Every structure is written in structure tokens, then in C-alpha cells.
């Protein structure tokens, strides 16, 4: 059911990338991974994934900047962004809230909730 969806996973921590990748692949998604925001942005532009799961604290380009760069891309075709972070401060909440189709998820995150969140989005999306 999810076979036609591609998810981009951006995180500088290998184990986290692996967990998300495995869980998504087992659910039938295509998964592409990036280990920092810059790599993520490049893949985002070239491969146009259906959803992005990103960390905030990353080398080169952080998750916030990645989201900001992603905003204009969302005009062309909407996609979901899930920001996974361990520091949920009010200011973090407020910039995430300003973004289109962007949700915040706290670390330690629950892989099953992440899947649920994606599924809900795709269901609502009707595609």
C-alpha cells in the first residue's frame, strides 16, 4: 500500500537512520537517507520524496534551515515533514508551527508513532 511512497530520512546519527529506514522499509516505503541537512536538501530537490523525517541538530545544515529551504518546495507539491528532536523548547515549537505540513516529535521517539503519523498523513492526503 505504501510501495509508491518515498521517504527521506535525515539524521547524523547512524543508528537512528537505520531504525527509521528499517521500520519504513518493512512497512513497504522506499527510503532514501542523508546524514546531514545539506545532503538532505540535495536529495529533497532531486528526488522529491513524499515525506521527510529530519533531526534538528546536524552538521553543515541543521534541521531548521532544511525546513526553511523546504518551504518553497512545498508550494509546488505538498509533503509532510516530521522534525524529530530531543530539545522541545517553546521556540522550537513556534518555528515548527509556522512551517507547512510540519510536525514535531520528541526524542526518545517512538518508531511506531512515527509510522502512524506518516500513515495518517498519507490517508488524509488521499493518495
Amino acid at each position, binding site marked *: 500500500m505504501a510501495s509508491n511512497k518515498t521517504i527521506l530520512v535525515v539524521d547524523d546519527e547512524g543508528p537512528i537512520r537505520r*531504525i527509521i529506514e528499517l521500520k519504513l522499509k518493512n512497512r513497504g516505503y522506499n527510503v532514501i537517507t542523508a546524514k546531514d541537512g545539506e545532503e538532505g536538501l540535495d536529495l529533497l530537490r532531486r528526488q522529491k520524496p513524499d515525506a521527510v523525517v529530519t533531526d534538528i541538530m546536524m552538521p553543515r545544515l541543521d534541521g531548521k534551515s532544511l525546513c526553511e529551504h523546504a518551504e518553497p518546495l512545498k508550494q509546488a507539491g505538498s509533503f509532510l515533514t516530521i522534525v524529530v528532536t530531543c530539545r522541545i523548547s517553546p521556540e522550537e515549537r513556534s518555528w515548527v508551527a509556522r512551517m507547512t505540513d510540519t510536525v514535531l516529535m520528541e526524542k526518545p521517539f517512538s518508531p511506531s508513532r512515527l509510522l502512524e503519523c506518516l500513515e495518517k498523513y498519507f490517508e488524509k492526503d488521499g493518495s
Partner: protein
Amino acid sequence: MKDLKTFEEFLHSLSEITGLGFEIRDADGRLSSAFAPRHTTPEPEGILELTRKIIETSTFQHASLPGAGACFGVPIPGAEEVIGVLLAYRAETTGRACQQQVSAEQGPSRQEMERLLSRTAWLIEENNRCRQDADDITEVLSQSFEDLHLFARIATQIKTLRFSDSMLRSLIEEIMESMGVDLAFAKFMDRDDRDVMVMEESLAHAIIDGQGLVDALVACTPLDTSDVTRHYFILNHSEEDPKFGSLYPDPYRFLAVRIEHESEFYGWLGLFSLNMAAIFRQSELRLLTSMAEQVAAVLANTDLYLDLERSIVNMVKSLIHAIEAKDVYTRGHSERVSEYCMRMATLLKLDAHQMETLQWASVLHDIGKIGISEGILNKPGTLTQEEYTHIQDHSRQGFNILRPLEQLKDSLPAILHHHERYDGTGYPDGLKGEGIPLLARIIAVADAYDAMTSHRAYRPAKPPEEALEILEEVAGSQLDPYMVELFVEMIEQEPGNCVTGSQKRMTG
């Protein structure tokens, strides 16, 4: 088999060098192939048979296949059995068949092929195993993340030291959601008012009485307290036990953990699931156990707290009895003043903490009289200046008596200052107006009114309307005028008080 793409490239390079084509198959057919130059080859006749033979014998095999010539193959072992084969043969292309046949014979020997293929198969096997291990470890890690996530959420819920129904409910909801079960509950042995039960919507549609199901489950759960190590009860399949099987039409799983603190057994924390494809995992049991421990610890804390509160109430009661035994005038006075004060507090919309503080202060406001001699307290006539000074000392004495009690510390200012006068001429500190604590100003009004309307050996009780008039007279000098106004209104509105002060004022 995992990641065959990587090997396809590797085998392709090998094919370029050796001129042999490579193929990975399992019993059902071709999984991957590498032929240089790249092309798809038809399946040589007899290759299925050769594949089957390799899988069956689990050894190197070779055969001469029509159209392919010499064909070599080795098994690729999996964790338990052979999961596929690696084959090498010269791919047939029309026209060149004859030439290749010749070169094949000049090609590597049987032993060389066995070595090459065995080592390559070993690499594939090793890669498979590593990939599988990595996935397994990732799965375990992922599960730990789920547990961590749950712990982090639960930890914020359970920070509280005192038990509350809402705390427990959200905890149970969280457990049900995180563990993906259909019903979760906390069932207490002697406090069923604390019981909590939450169900998935689908289950709620199927059964009307969830609590009834919980009660039945708990009733069937063996209560073997002698076995200390067994702090939980698990039923992986309801059909294992006819007692449980009859409780619900569909098969279910059931896990219950004892809510226990230092051998004080409170009840059960339980999970019920209709999803028979899953099982209760060890980590879930551990998690549920620590939740139960936390809940039990909070309950034990709450019990201690309530015990402490009860002992303070009892101590206060003893103190009141002590002063009442000594001072006949105080008998019933403390309670009545407290009652007036609480009614005032309601009108003033004081918060719960202020209410509690006022209650303690009003009940105990005269406690300092314990330190005054009975001769003075019960003297029918007028007091000498010296005796009066003694009496005045009772507010400070009360303050001193109660000061060691941490729980009453907020009530102390109201006790110390309940004889201050609004104009600043009262005792002990001569505080003035708003400088007098609010609760002390409330007590002062109630105290004055009750003193006037009670019988004294040296004078009869005044009727309420007269007492109210006097209150109004001293409003602003002795008493806070706003509190007096409120008090007068409150008394006048009492049912049965038809002769009201205001009517009298209007006519008089």
C-alpha cells in the same frame, strides 16, 4: 537473500575477467544473474535439476548441461538450511556456441571453480548474516526506543508524589496506547473508587461492561502471595485455561502485574489484547512492572500523607478538648467560629489552600488559653489589669504552641493576629487595617459575634440582631468594615432570621 545488487556488480566484474556467467537461484528460480557482456540468457535445460541437487546435498556439484556446457554450482547456506545456490556456466549465444565450448574446456579446472564459487558463496552468506544481524539489532534498538519513549512519557506523568485519579487515568491510557493492547486497567483490592479501565474503541463497541470483564479477569487471577518472585500473571492464550476462556468469546492474551510496595498489596495493573499475532514481550513486562512499582510507591506515599494528616487532625482535636476542659466559655466556641469563618470564606471565594489554612486557624485560634490559669479564664466578674494582660497573651501563646507543626505554619499568622484591631490599637503587634492578615480579620469578626451571642456566667447571651448592630458600630475601629458588612449580610440571610438588622435600621 539480502542485498544481491552488490553481488551482481561484483559477479559481473568476475564475469568480464573469466568469461563465465554467474547466477544466484533458489529452489523457485533465478534471483540474480551476471553475464558479460550484459544480456539476458535463456535458462539452460537441466539447471533446475542441478539446483535442486545442490540444495539437497548441500555440496559443490557440476554437470554438463546441453546448450551451456560445463556448469558448476555451490550451495549458499542460510542460518539453518541452504537458502540458494551460486552457479557458474558459459552463457550460450548463437553462433559462438562452438567456440565457447572449446574455450570452456580450456577454462578453470573443477577444483578451481569449486574454490572460487565456495569463497564467493561464503561472502554472500556472510553478507546475508551481517545484514540480518544488523536488522535484528536495529529491531531491538527500535524496541528500546519505544520503551524509552514510553518511559519518558510515563516519567512525566508519575512525577507527582500524591495519588490522583487523573494521574492514574492518563498513565493507563498511555500504557494502553503504547503497548498496543485493547484494554488496560488498574484494579485495587479495597479501593474500587480508584479503579481505572480504558478500552480501544473497537472493543468498547463489542462489550458493554468493560469493568465487569476486568473484575472477572482479576477474580480468575491466582492470588498467590506466598510466591515472592512471582509478581505477575501471564496468560498467552485464553484457551489454555477454561476459567479464562469462558470470559470472552474470542481468544485473548492477558497480563497482570501486582501493584505492591514493601509487601503491601494494592491491586493489579493489567493488559488485555485480542491481537493473537503478537505476544507480551519481556521488555513490556519489565516496563509494566516498573509502572506498577511506581504506582504502588505513589500510593504508599499518599497513604503516609493521609496518615500524617489524620494524626494532625487527631492532635488538633486533643488540643481543643484540652482547652475546652479548662475554659467553659470556649466549649463549642471554636467550632462555631470555624463554621462562620468557612461560610465567610465561601462568600469571599477563597482558594482551597486558604480555606484549609483558615479552617485550622479558626478552630485553633484560642488554643493559647491552655497556658492561662483557670482562675482567670473562668472568672465571673471583671478582670484586673494584670489578669487582662494575661488573657491578651493567649494569641502569642497559641502561636508558640503550634509553631513546631510544619503543617500548620500557614495558619499561624491568623492565630497570632486575631485580636488585632482595625484601627491599630489591638494586640499583640498593633497591626492596622490591611496590615492585619486577611484570615485574622475574618476570624476577628466571627470571634466577636460568637462571644456576644453565647451565654457567659457574668451576662446573658445577646440576641443576634443586637450583636450584629454592635459589630456594625465597631466596624472600622475594632473590625474590618468590609468583613463586618459581609458577615452581617451572611447572618441576615440565614433562614429563620426574619428580624434583620437592616429593617431595624430603616425603621429606627
